């Protein structure tokens, strides 16, 4: 073979290899390049390309395997997480910062007394349900989390119930950021803390927080009401000589006697310092002094 014949032969080899490689355009690397040449350099080129293709196939296989392993891991973790979530009474929320939409768990909806929605909601859906007095605090806590001045969200607010009333919630959350440091995802839980916040654990009566909120409501509604404070003097001196069980019994007895006195329209709350409070709204035409 003379030089020009060799060059033509090698050109044929290159064209043939290039044509065969066009198959890869559809991501099909499962091909074997074969060349019909006696030229050892043509053979060398084809075998090296086959080596490359083999490595691409191997990496693709590895990727598929790795994907399967990761998917299995994600499935496992999701199952575990679902178990934890369904076992707890907390609600879960996941805020996609890019889409600005929030997915709520079934429990979250249940806490608002609503039926669950499969589709994500706009942030207003949440904010509109928060007590007007608490919404600013919640929003600024979320903003602080997004801006990074806080690494954890911790906010208490009242969430309106479908039935009309409010329940106290504690919301906790964290923020995940992208490579540029912008918020990608916010996620957290919502716990109903109404009982914790509003009830005196010793007597089971509403506590000062609850009383304060009711008074605020009445003031806002410009209603007339009265508050009677009953201080039980020297209770400490008595309880000092009692054991825990007897002390509890005494407290319950006092609460019960006061409750017996309280009309259904009156609220009895336990305040710190062995003090009890009656709250009663004065209806139109009623004379507070008569009531007293």
């Amino acid at each position, binding site marked *: 073979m003379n030089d020009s014949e060799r060059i033509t032969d090698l050109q044929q080899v290159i064209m043939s290899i290039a044509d065969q490689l066009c198959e890869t355009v559809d991501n099909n690397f499962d091909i*074997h390049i*074969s*060349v019909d040449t*006696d030229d*050892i*350099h043509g*053979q*060398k080129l*084809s*075998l*090296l390309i*086959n*080596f490359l*293709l*083999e490595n691409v196939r191997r990496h693709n296989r590895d990727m598929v395997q790795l994907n399967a392993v990761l998917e299995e891991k994600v499935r496992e973790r999701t199952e575990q997480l679902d178990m934890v979530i369904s076992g707890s009474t907390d609600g879960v929320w996941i805020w996609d910062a890019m889409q600005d939409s929030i997915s709520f768990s079934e429990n979250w909806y249940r806490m608002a007394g609503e039926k669950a929605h499969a589709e994500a909601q706009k942030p207003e859906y949440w904010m509109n349900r928060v007590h007007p007095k608490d919404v600013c605090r919640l929003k600024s806590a979320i903003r602080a989390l997004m801006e990074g001045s806080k690494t954890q969200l911790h906010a208490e607010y009242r969430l309106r119930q479908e039935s009309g009333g409010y329940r106290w919630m504690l919301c906790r959350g964290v923020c995940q950021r992208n490579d540029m440091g912008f918020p990608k995802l916010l996620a957290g839980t919502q716990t109903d803390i109404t009982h914790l916040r509003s009830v005196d654990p010793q007597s089971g009566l509403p506590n000062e927080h609850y009383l304060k909120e009711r008074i605020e409501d009445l003031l806002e509604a410009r209603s007339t009401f009265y508050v009677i404070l009953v201080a039980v003097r020297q209770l400490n001196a008595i309880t000092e000589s009692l054991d825990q069980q007897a002390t509890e019994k005494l407290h319950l007895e006092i609460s019960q006697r006061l409750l017996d006195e309280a009309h259904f329209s009156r609220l009895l709350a336990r305040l710190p310092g062995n003090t009890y409070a009656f709250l009663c709204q004065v209806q139109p035409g009623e004379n507070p002094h008569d009531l007293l």
Partner: protein
Amino acid sequence: MIGIIQRVLLDLLEETGGEPLKFAVMDRAGVPHDRDFRIDQNYPDDECLKLIQGAVDETGLSEDAINVLYAKAFLKEARNLFPQFFMMAKSSEQFLLRQATIHGVIASGLKKPEERQVVKDKFSARSIEPGFVEVTYRSPNKLCGLFRALAHEVAGIYGECLTVHCADCMKRGDDACRFELRWEKTAPDGILSSE
């Protein structure tokens, strides 16, 4: 066996004894004279072994002597064909650590995956410590003499000195050959480094 092995042997025979020697060896192995051994194709192992034996019988040289001559010719051709493999390795230790992988690269030229696997399964190499490499060789062809010759020849290319200890040997009944390759600490300037 991939055709490069037979091709180098026949070229060497032709170079030293002309076509008569080459054809005589081919006749002994029952290989037609017009056979062109390709580097991207597989040929029967026993045909290759018969060619090697034929070379021993026709030349009257010992198997060891043939191996040494062959190793020189093979590596000359390998350096022509794949100079980059030699440039990539800064020492014969680095080269011999990569030898099993190089075989895998050449095996990619074969169409059938099972044939590629056979080639890849023959060798594995690992570094025990600097200056000490262990190579495992498992093949029905039992060409451990050729391995030794090639290993020494590679060291020679880099101007280095190497000892090859055959800790296990298929010819002694072991399941595989286990070569312990050790390098002297200091090496004179090699051919490659003076290039």
